[in-house]
């Protein structure tokens, strides 16, 4: 949660653009990331993130601060935006759409490619999960929200969110284990390499 967030929210409700701008700067990368991991395409993620914040800004006068972080409300808007997006698009999302250039950490090409492949596997496994499982995994492990914040964002109780998280991580682990190369075991013959 952002420092002095309640003060910024109070000012934004009254139409203070500067206060909302600070909130935007803090939450925009998270919402963008959340949407991107669900839709898989940068352009669509940018459009949807824009829609989320536009919706939030337009309806901020009617926002009621109930003590939860603003992010919970924004994630909810983002989830609904993605649902509406899928309802209109109905397209299969390509798994190989992860752009290595997004990782602007200065790594060399080789390690970036390796990371990209690994992250591509994770991304693919994440995409294959049910939407509710995707949501809890992204909120808890990618954006590192607390269980309480994630539950609020999903509109569930903490207990339900915890159970959902448990099932989601189990499913994700199963899919990642299926993708990762298995180590050689006793008596097991690995397939021969093809001659060049």
């Amino acid at each position: 949660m952002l420092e002095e967030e309640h003060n910024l929210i109070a000012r934004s409700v009254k139409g203070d653009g500067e206060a909302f701008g600070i909130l935007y700067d803090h939450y925009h990368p998270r919402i963008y990331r959340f949407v991107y991991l669900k839709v898989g395409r940068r352009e669509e993620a940018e459009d949807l993130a824009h829609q989320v914040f536009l919706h939030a800004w337009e309806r901020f006068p009617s926002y009621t601060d109930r003590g939860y972080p603003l992010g919970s409300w924004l994630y909810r808007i983002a989830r609904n935006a993605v649902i509406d997006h899928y309802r209109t698009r109905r397209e299969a999302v390509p798994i190989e759409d992860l752009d290595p250039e997004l990782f602007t950490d200065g790594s060399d090409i080789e390690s970036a490619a390796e990371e990209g492949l690994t992250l591509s596997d994770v991304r693919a496994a994440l995409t294959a999960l049910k939407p509710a499982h995707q949501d809890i995994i992204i909120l808890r492990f990618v954006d590192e929200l607390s269980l309480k914040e994630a539950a609020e964002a999903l509109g569930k109780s903490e207990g339900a969110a915890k159970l959902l998280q448990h099932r989601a991580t189990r499913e994700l682990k199963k899919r990642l284990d299926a993708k990762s190369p298995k180590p050689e075991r006793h008596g097991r013959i690995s397939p021969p390499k093809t001659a060049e």
Partner: protein
Amino acid sequence: MDEFHRLKQLNKIAPDPEYALQTRVRILAAPQKMQVPIWSTFVVSLRSGSIVAIAALALVVIGGGASLMKYLESSALSSPTLKAEAQAIDMQIELTNVDYKSLPSFAPLSVKRDAIASKDKDKSDNATSSAMNIDEALNALTQ
């Protein structure tokens, strides 16, 4: 590599800074909407509509009542006036003598018919003669 570590690495995904700045400017330039609940809109419209209807009804009642009062108060419908008008009507009913003697009560129908026919003939003769007199008068005028 632990899957949770891999998931955390997804945290590196970030939007294009230039795009983020552009969308920020566009969003803050948009006007905010004051949301009014639908039910309150319905209540307001109902209230305003009912006020208009009640006002129109009141106008009709008041206007109609006033004109009715005026009408009732006018001399045309006051009871003394009506009495005077009734008395002023000169109704003179005259019963002409009925000649029962000319026709016997037990005379056969054919006799009665003949009597009636002769009376009708007299009338038509008179009409013809009067018509001819009129014709002569008109001829005289044209000459």
